[in-house]
């Protein structure tokens, strides 16, 4: 069963950028419905991701949650100076998750998580105005995380585990603004690397101040995906020693930044829970996206990013309406890690307001259906990317961007 699910994750996991940078916060339908809070919430095996230390307080002996989100994200671009305009036609992303927890005894629990916290899938019209920066990108990273959780006493628990990441990237852009072959087809390059893997870790703690008030903290380490000997495929390049672009391999590094979350939850009335999470993502590791081509004739591609650390403020509410229904709602404010002048169209992110809602339907003792919905709202923004160079001259790519995302999600939880 696990194997089948894992395969399904590998086959389908394709996330879409709609959070700051290429972080995709869709790690559980219950949590997402309440603003993607959860670091101090004890209610399901989603804690494998949000706070492994909480697993040991789960009431159930065994619990497994699986789910999927459908990500409908859109980017519109226009440049009033020239009238150039474009809209993305990105594929619908379907990030998946699977969490399992097992209560070994009163003080020890085990867990396993498979999830996709980083990804990006953006597809512009070919040869659009910014095609020298990106035509399309598909970035995936699947995290596999075995977890252990210890109860130190009724007030305090700790948890954590190693993380194995396997990722892939496929990225196409035109070589510059004008190079074509004889027939006028724009010269472009596709870089592709898959099966890129590395290890990281997660550690967390949970403090139960009272029966109703919990505080949690989770730290997930930075993981650098080093793509080695990926394929670089050059197309429509003129046959000339002046344009020495031939298929070759490339090396590149993509950081999956560390993330720290602290938060609290409070059961403030009977059946009501309030949760607040604060995320800090350490994006400053993402300084530049550099493609180092093996062929020395081909100039390496340097793309400054210079991200800054960013914060997310999350608020969520849960109401156990009846024995059958649990209702949730939430909001979070997501700060963009993109600095002014570094607004690249592959991740055109400004600050966003995010609204979530959802519910759980209890079908008997053991089975739950979890549903959630997220709407990400970005303000229209005039922005530019100023670090693209032609013959040593900076050529800013600017315009007005408007983006949004709609994410319905559905999950199942089975518990014993």
């Amino acid at each position, binding site marked *: 069963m696990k194997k089948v699910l894992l395969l399904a994750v590998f086959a389908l996991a394709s996330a879409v950028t709609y959070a700051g940078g290429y972080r995709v916060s869709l790690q559980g339908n219950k949590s997402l419905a309440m603003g993607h809070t959860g670091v101090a919430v004890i209610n399901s095996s989603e804690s494998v991701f949000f706070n492994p230390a909480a697993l040991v307080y789960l009431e159930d002996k065994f619990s497994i949650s699986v789910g999927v989100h459908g990500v409908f994200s859109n980017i519109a671009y226009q440049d*009033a100076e020239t009238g150039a305009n474009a809209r993305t036609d990105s594929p619908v992303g379907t990030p998946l998750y699977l969490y399992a927890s097992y209560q070994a005894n009163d003080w020890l629990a085990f867990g396993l998580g498979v999830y996709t916290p980083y990804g990006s899938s953006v597809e512009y019209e070919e040869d659009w105005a910014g095609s020298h920066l990106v035509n399309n990108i598909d970035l995936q990273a699947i995290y596999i995380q075995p977890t252990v959780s210890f109860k130190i006493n009724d007030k305090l628990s700790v948890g954590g585990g190693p993380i194995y990441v396997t990722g892939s990237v496929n990225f196409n852009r035109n070589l510059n603004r004008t190079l074509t072959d004889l027939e006028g087809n724009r010269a472009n390059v596709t870089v592709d690397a898959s099966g890129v893997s590395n290890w990281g870790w997660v550690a967390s703690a949970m403090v139960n101040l009272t029966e109703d008030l919990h505080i949690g903290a989770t730290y997930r380490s930075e993981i650098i995906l080093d793509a080695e000997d990926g394929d670089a495929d050059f197309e429509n390049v003129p*046959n000339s020693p002046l344009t020495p672009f031939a298929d070759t391999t490339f090396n590149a590094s993509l950081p999956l930044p560390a993330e720290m979350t602290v938060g609290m939850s409070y059961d403030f009335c009977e059946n009501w829970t309030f949760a607040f999470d604060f995320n800090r993502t350490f994006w400053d590791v993402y300084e530049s996206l550099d493609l180092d081509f093996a062929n020395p004739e081909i100039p390496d591609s340097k793309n400054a990013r210079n991200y800054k650390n960013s914060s997310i403020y999350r608020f969520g509410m849960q109401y156990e309406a009846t024995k059958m229904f649990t209702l949730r709602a939430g909001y979070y404010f997501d700060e963009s890690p993109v600095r002014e002048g570094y607004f690249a169209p592959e991740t055109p992110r400004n600050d966003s307001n995010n609204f979530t809602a959802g519910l759980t339907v209890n079908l008997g003792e053991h089975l739950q259906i979890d*549903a959630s919905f997220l709407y990400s709202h970005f303000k229209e923004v005039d922005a530019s990317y100023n670090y693209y160079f032609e013959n040593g001259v900076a050529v800013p790519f600017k315009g007005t961007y408007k983006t949004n995302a709609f994410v319905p999600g559905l999950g199942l939880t089975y518990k014993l």
Partner: protein
Amino acid sequence: MKNILKYTFAVLAVGFVSCEPEFDSPVTDDGFYSSGSADFSKYVSVGNSLTAGYADGALYITGQNNSYPNIMAQQFSFVGGGDFTQPLMNDNLGGLLLGGSQIAENRFVLAVGPNGNPGPVRLDGMPTTDVSNKLSGSFNNMGVPGAKSFHLVAPGYGNVAGVPTGAANPYFARFASSESATVIGDAAAQNATFFTLWIGNNDILSYATSGGAGVDQTGNLDPTSYGSNDITDPNVFAAVYSQQVDALTANGAKGVLVNIPEVTSIPYFTTVPTNAIPLDAATAAQLNAQFAAYNNQILPGLVGIGLISAEEAALRMINFSASLNNFPIMTDDDLTDITTVLQGPPFNLPAQLAALLGQLRQVNANDLIVLPASSVLGSTPDPNNPQGVIGVSIPLTDQYVLAASEQARVTAASTAYNATIQALAGAKNLAFVDAKAALSRVANGGIVYDGGLLTSQFVTGGAFSLDGVHPTPRGYAYTANLIIQAINDTYDATIPKVHIGNYGTVTVTNN
């Protein structure tokens, strides 16, 4: 539960239908840009090779796609502009066939030669555009490569039967509405709401590119008697130009008139330096010794008998020095031909030497050497005679040099044409584009754009294609912006311009 599910799905449904992000004011909305007092629903462009999108010595599809009228038509689409069709060539080679035989060469591309240096070469391949295959329908782009002002009103200019004799134009033959059609008649028949007219360049250009090999026909009002390299009489130009403007504005259409640039600022005339002959001291002394009699005896003698003026004698003096910067010698048909005089007494020179000296002078800084001379200068046409070097011991023929006297004729004619164009624009309330001033800015310092500097430097400057005469796509985009600016100014419109850095320059490829 039923209700909750129903509401959930209702919310989802709303989400999906309103998925697309909408700008506060989308550029694609009516009213974002304004057409002002003009109407762009039917745009027709009339002109010559520059209007057709000719570049790199040929007309080919991607060049046509980057013609300034086509670039403008894309921008007109923001202000109610309709479709814009062009008589597209059959391929990107650019050569022409007539009944299967090639009558025009393929385009130039920038190729790296065996010595590692890049230079223009003709693209290999058999062209597939046969001018006897007529295109059907009318076309918004009526640019006809090679057309002079009076050709646009000449019946039969598109008669395919006249192509072999030069009486008709192969490009117009492809899309003329009938064998007796005129370019301007076919353009006017389209009942355009807006037009651009840029014609007259070839009325001086072929004279200039041929190094002044033609005749200045100023004073001759019969264009049917002109040769292909002649300068058109300014009164002929004024008459036919006025006729064309009348035809295009007959239905009240608005439009733009574009004037004629100074041809002498294009790379065809500015790339080959006038003084690039390197000589060592021994060679210079030997040459000076050979020309000593010519300088010191023959020329003063001819002045003495009143055959040439003292000024002409000074112009004809030949002097070399031990340096990298000697001027080549040339034959100038504006000089007095002294060949027969030299064969008689008192000079008694042999016929061959007399012919050499007949109209001989040294190129000077006021002359311009044409681009094709670069492959001739310094060459030894007779491999058995290494002493016979073109420019040093064999004069450059007149076709390679546009002498100062010839430049003056070109300037006089184009100045007269431009006076006509500007006056008509004013009289008819049409937009006017000073292409002459714009090209002069490109040639003198260049134009800053979002990626560098656009200059007239051959190959590297970005403005001119590999024929040294016609613009690159980037040069055409710059032209389109100039015209759009004039339209916006004249008709109170707000048509957006393009980023010229998004348009390419010369095409590199090795055969």
